[in-house]
């Protein structure tokens, strides 16, 4: 019974790990690959670690280490994925040619537009002020 549970959990985990690996191999650009890598962690690693916990029993050194590893992966890997995606975007790694939206670039354009508008308003106010003092 316990062996059956271990085999089922391991099959789920290994299947997701394999699909994540195939995704990393076949996805067209870096950002999609980062997304596949995150899937590998949450659905690929955790069921396998739970399989180890089930197989070794709750009170054992394997279980504590497996749970600690799962906790670390769950905590650290999204952080590293986020840092990597952000750094790659700043370094100008290109998106896939079929990508539809780049919301970060749109937000940046909007911000720059706002700043230009406010600077123009500032200039106009200064100009009015000078005219006012001149008369």
């Amino acid at each position, binding site marked *: 019974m316990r062996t059956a549970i271990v085999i089922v959990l391991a099959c789920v985990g*290994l299947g997701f790990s394999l699909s994540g690996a195939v995704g990393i191999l076949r996805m067209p650009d870096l950002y999609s690959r980062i997304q596949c890598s995150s899937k590998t962690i949450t659905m690929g690693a955790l069921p396998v670690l739970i399989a180890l916990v089930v197989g070794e029993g709750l009170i054992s050194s394997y279980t504590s*280490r497996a749970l600690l590893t799962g906790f*670390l992966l769950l905590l650290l890997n999204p952080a590293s994925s986020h840092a990597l995606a952000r750094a790659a975007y700043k370094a100008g790694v290109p998106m896939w040619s079929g990508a539809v939206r780049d919301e970060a670039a749109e937000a940046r354009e909007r911000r720059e537009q706002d700043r230009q508008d406010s600077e123009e308003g500032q200039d106009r106010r200064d100009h009015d002020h000078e005219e006012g003092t001149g008369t």
Partner: protein
Amino acid sequence: MRTVFGVISFAEIAIGVLLMVRLALGPTVADRVVALNTICTQAALSVLFYAAYADRSIYLDVGLWFASFSYLGAIVFARYLERELL
């Protein structure tokens, strides 16, 4: 049960070998770092299951260090990328 653990350990290694294709091909450095990060996770899992297969709990700490230091590697590479030093 131990055979199952051995098979799982071997399968994780096989997935890591599959990821090495992306590590070799990857057009940018960031692609390689993503592949390396995932390989590190697979290696950590493989070491954990090898410890259960060989019944040596001393190997467990190796897996734990793998899991935490892949994070450190990705952060360092991300920092270099962000400062455009690579």
